[in-house]
């Protein structure tokens, strides 16, 4: 069992859970994830390890409530526990040792960027984080990222920071030059747009793919993605890949496999449990989880 030791709300549908997982806290590296299963009967869902405190023996998971399983998870209170946490899974991020990196986070993807930006900052790499959301309340982890370097915030409606998408802010940085690598995590259309944007500049661009998976160890093959024309498993070969080589169209399609099922599950949950959550069922979702 993995007791929750802290919980806070980062945006209207993004929650931060800090939970006990001492062994994983000691050995995890940026870019790795865990598979959690709340309890008997629950789904297994992959979640990036956003942070870890080896001394306290805790890891931080930042969860967007988009389906029934994630909604169940974010409702856990300190003192309650997650039954199963398996990891750390996936390969660690390939990190620069020097130079200048731009870390781009869209929505809950910002949580995946955080450990990368932190580690880059620790290594003395210059970090500029570009993060965005629909409006001010959807921008997360700004203060945490500022500890690693400069932060540019963007909102679609202009209610905070720059008015517009993260791609516009990134465009200015690319024009200015001097970028050695870009780490971009967010909805598939965002990662695809950024990869296309950086291609002509020849800047290495790493994206983290939130493919659907069951075991997270290469056993099911559900997370297969096409990179450089070859099939890879996001769980063991990734989750990070060269954005210039990823077939994002296929990824987006595969992510929609269970959409009708997810919608039904959420509606059912909303109808029979918490009426307020009916609103969650209305939301259009990007991936399954992140």
């Amino acid at each position, binding site marked *: 069992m993995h007791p929750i030791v802290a919980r806070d709300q980062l945006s209207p549908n993004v929650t931060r859970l800090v939970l006990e997982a001492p062994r994983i806290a000691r050995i995890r590296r940026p870019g790795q994830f865990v598979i959690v299963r709340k309890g008997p009967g629950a789904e297994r869902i992959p979640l990036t390890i956003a942070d870890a405190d080896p001394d306290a023996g805790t890891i931080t998971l930042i969860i967007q409530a988009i389906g029934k399983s994630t909604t169940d998870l974010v409702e856990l209170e300190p003192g309650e526990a997650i039954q199963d946490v*398996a990891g750390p899974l996936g390969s660690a991020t390939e990190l620069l040792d020097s130079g200048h990196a731009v870390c781009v986070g869209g929505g809950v993807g910002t949580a995946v960027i955080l450990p990368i930006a932190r580690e880059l900052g620790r290594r003395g790499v210059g970090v500029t984080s570009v993060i965005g959301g629909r409006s001010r309340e959807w921008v997360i982890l700004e203060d945490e990222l500022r500890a690693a370097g400069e932060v540019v915030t963007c909102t679609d409606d202009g209610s905070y920071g720059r008015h517009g998408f993260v791609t516009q802010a990134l465009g200015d940085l690319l024009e200015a030059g001097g970028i050695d690598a870009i780490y971009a995590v967010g909805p598939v259309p965002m990662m695809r747009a950024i990869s296309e944007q950086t291609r002509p500049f020849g800047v290495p661009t790493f994206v983290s793919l939130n493919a659907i998976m069951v075991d997270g160890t290469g056993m099911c093959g559900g997370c297969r993605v096409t990179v450089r024309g070859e099939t890879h498993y996001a769980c063991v070969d990734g989750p990070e890949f060269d954005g210039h080589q990823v077939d994002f169209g296929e990824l987006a399609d595969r992510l929609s496999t269970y959409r009708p099922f997810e919608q039904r599950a959420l509606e059912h949950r909303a109808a029979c449990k918490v009426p307020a959550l009916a609103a969650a069922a209305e939301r259009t979702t990007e991936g399954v989880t992140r």
Partner: protein
Amino acid sequence: MTDETPPGGARGDEIVRKILAGEPVTVGPKERMLLDRVAMLEQDAGARSANFEEVNLGFTERLAVLEAERCLQCKNPKCIDGCPVRVNIPRFIEFLRVGDLPAAAESLLDDNALPCVTGRVCPQETQCELLCLRGKKGKPVAIGYLERYVADWAQAHPEALPHLRPAASGRTVAIVGSGPAGLTAAGELAKRGHQVTVFEAFHAPGGVLIYGIPEFRLPKDIVQAEVDRLRDNGVTIESNSIIGKLFTLAELREQFDAVFLAVGAGLPVFMGVPGENLKGVYSANEYLTRVNLMGAWAPDAETPVLHGQRVVVVGGGNVAMDSVRTARRLGAEEAIIVYRRGPDELPARAEEVHHAEQEGVRFDFLVAPLEVLGDDERWVTGLRCIRMELGEPDASGRRRPVPIEGSEFVIECDMVVVAIGTRSNPILRSSAPELAVNEWGYITTDEFGMTNLPGVFAGGDIVRGAATVILAMGDGKRAAASIDSWLTGSWPPVPAGENDEAAAGASPVPAPVASS
């Protein structure tokens, strides 16, 4: 009640009647030959193709005793040679025949850590029953059904069995993987007083018994009960523990006196044809894991699985049969096996093929997939195939299928399950480069089951490639004997008694090909 072999005349009928009525009857050696093999009771094919309840219903005690009477109690029983874990078959059958079920159960459990499992999923027809003397003329003793009866009785009557905790040896063993090889080794080592910790990657122990084999063939509560019995015998199971990620092999070697690697061959093989990443194409691993481990067969399950209406399963092994029968139960109007060889080459157990046929599964033999077809939204719409004919025998001795030019055609379908085999998972070996593996990534071992690393043993599919539950269990049992020798300072293991043939690695049963 009995199979279609010629009836045993008036005396045979009388013996059957008396045994079934529970009346005393003495059956002479020649009279045993009058008795026909008792057939397994099965759930009706029409009903079961829409539910996940067990197909085989088991014997009653009277039917079991009747079948036990058929055993000739050979002086030199060949059946034992056919068993990869060398169960003393005539011994437990004799206890059953005289009605001493506690002794039958103890005898069976002494030889076999998971008899409820093997009594259900072993290919007895190519092992013990193949060598049964009664099979020379007529039908062999239904050893598997009798094993299942005694094992189920033992599971239902734990109080009747001796609960012996051997003296602690003070030695520790780490077992990586809780499938059939790992659990068998765990049981054997616990019996010898060693402190055993089993590391399992999933949240639930059992390996392929839990995620792979469906409920209708091996109910999960039965696996759970077998695992619980091992826990009662002092085995610790650590779930969610992926060796190579959470701990390295080097760390296990530091913390334990010996290590047994039984991680299975868990990486799915795909066909390598265009369209394989379309929505609606599953590996058998993913399909069965969703349905079995995650319980997606239940209508209110949280883990989703696609319910295809026309489902094509590619492959001819037991995993293909499990997949296609699962698809039928999840509502597929048509569930089709596509296999590139002919019916005689099917690697699946005869019983599974027969059950699939009864449940309305269609078999397209001598057909190979060329491409998965999809619509604008990238959902599967069909499988483009080519017909094959059998040519010259290949390395496996089976006639090689050769494409017939111009014979391409399309099978319309909305789901494809790829069940053409599995490979070695790289996670363990990539974190343990010191471990010797062969060119396919399978771990190499010596005649005692030890790897190139002293004190590190390996067995099951990660050594032999995809095979059967019982062969993995045989490996687990042999490895446990070797590990015991290693831990008690009697290395190398000294051959003594009948188990040594097996201990020396000379398995009397050739490894079957799981699928092709």
